[in-house]
């Protein structure tokens, strides 16, 4: 029988089924792979927005070839995040400026593209903002930038073992991310506020 499970990170409870998440998914408890609190629990609001990742026409996978090619790099030269005007106003994000996106795994920085294409989701009577991020960047190559994959957790589906990089939750704040130890401190501060431990998010 087909059923529906919510993603590992989600702002919503499963409307269809008693189990929130797939009980047969593969989890890895590691200090660099912490999961977010379940919806409707204290701390869930620390990572309030939905993040999804996708491709651009100009780049191929993580950019291993296309980011080394000047003719493609110049067409999409920087890692960016797309947000709707409502979220930009809520978090004081400046169009063309920088934003830092934070999860319990890491914090990455990206240029801000405010666009009507990013529409808030209306689910269970509440509206939740989405952040869209192309995942083609990394630290090496001709066009470089942070990698969106840094934000994702390793929670694998039981059949083909794919991690959930298309649906996760995060917070977003204006400005560039801190460097070095301060970057780690920022991620840890978020984890503390959300009450994240090694058990968080491992329930079904």
């Amino acid at each position, binding site marked *: 029988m087909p059923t529906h499970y919510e993603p590992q990170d989600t702002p919503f409870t499963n409307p269809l089924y008693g189990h929130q998440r797939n009980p047969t998914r593969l989890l890895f408890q590691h200090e660099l792979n912490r999961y977010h609190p379940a919806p409707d629990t204290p701390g869930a609001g620390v990572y309030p927005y939905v993040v999804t990742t996708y491709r651009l026409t100009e780049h191929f996978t993580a950019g291993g070839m296309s980011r080394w090619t000047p003719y493609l790099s110049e*067409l999409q030269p920087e890692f960016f995040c797309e947000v709707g005007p409502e979220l930009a106003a809520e978090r004081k994000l400046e169009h063309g400026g920088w934003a830092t996106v934070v999860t319990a795994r890491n914090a990455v920085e990206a240029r801000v593209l405010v*666009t*009507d294409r990013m*529409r*808030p989701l*209306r689910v269970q009577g509440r509206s939740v903002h989405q952040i869209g991020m192309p995942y083609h960047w990394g630290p090496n190559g001709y066009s470089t930038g942070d990698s969106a994959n840094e934000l994702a957790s390793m929670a694998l589906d039981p059949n083909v073992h794919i991690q959930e990089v298309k649906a996760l939750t995060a917070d977003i704040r204006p400005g560039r991310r801190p460097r070095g130890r301060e970057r780690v401190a920022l991620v840890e501060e978020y984890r503390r506020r959300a009450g994240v431990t090694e058990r968080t998010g491992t329930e079904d």
Partner: protein
Amino acid sequence: MAADGQPSRKGFFTDTSVCIGCKACEVACKEWNQVPEDGLDFLASSFDNSGRLSADTWRHVAFIEQRQPLGHQDPGVGRPEGGAGDAPGPVDLGMPSFDLPGQRTGEDGGSGGGDFRWLMSSDVCKHCTSAACLDVCPTGALFRTEFDTVVVQEDICNGCGYCVPACPYGVIDRREVDGRAWKCTLCYDRLGDGLEPACAKACPTDSIQFGDLDELRERAERRVEDLQEAGVSSARLYGEDPGNGVDGAGAFFLLLDEPEVYGLPPDPVVTTRDLPSMWRHAGAAAVVLLAGAAAAFAGRRS
């Protein structure tokens, strides 16, 4: 071929209504013509990071986001039902919509919540019938080819830059590293070998169409009529009219909004149009001045 044995006038018809913004034209142009990279600048201008035509960008795809109804993306809009001749008719791919039936997802709810359209348009040198860049070039580097296109010869251009402010479209530009003027050649070398320009060859949707200008103009008229009939009332041609300010462009466009929206001048005029009359006025003024001076001397003597 025209009756006199010369090749007929060649041009581009860029039908922006089917452009998908893939930028294959930009890349193909650069690959073929060995145009250098134009800088890694994030412009925060939708998905357009080229910005404008320049010495190092000879095709430029503009992306314009508008809060306007698209009329939805119907496949094959304006194509005859069941296909023309051998061509297949429109196919509904059954792509899902993002709205619940009767409900908009946006926070602003009902009114206009889902109205959005993305205009994409690939701009290029217009290869004007009356080309100001060519009129002002003192070295003869800019010349009109046997295909009635306008080309700069890179080994003759001395970088004086007169052509840059002369172009009413802001197309031709000097390359910083060598000072010379560069622009689209309509792939002069490829035309000589019977090939179509690289951008037209690469364009997957045939948004860029290359051919005899007369035939392209007829084709474009038909396309506008089809679109108008299908309810796309904003469809219009830009630059096709031989009576316009540049006496007709060799590269013209089908647009879905005012030219200004795409960054195109609404009513460009060849900047050298008034030169003869300016010289006539200057000449008349000189004659009057000379006559006045002569009269003053003549008056004193008597």
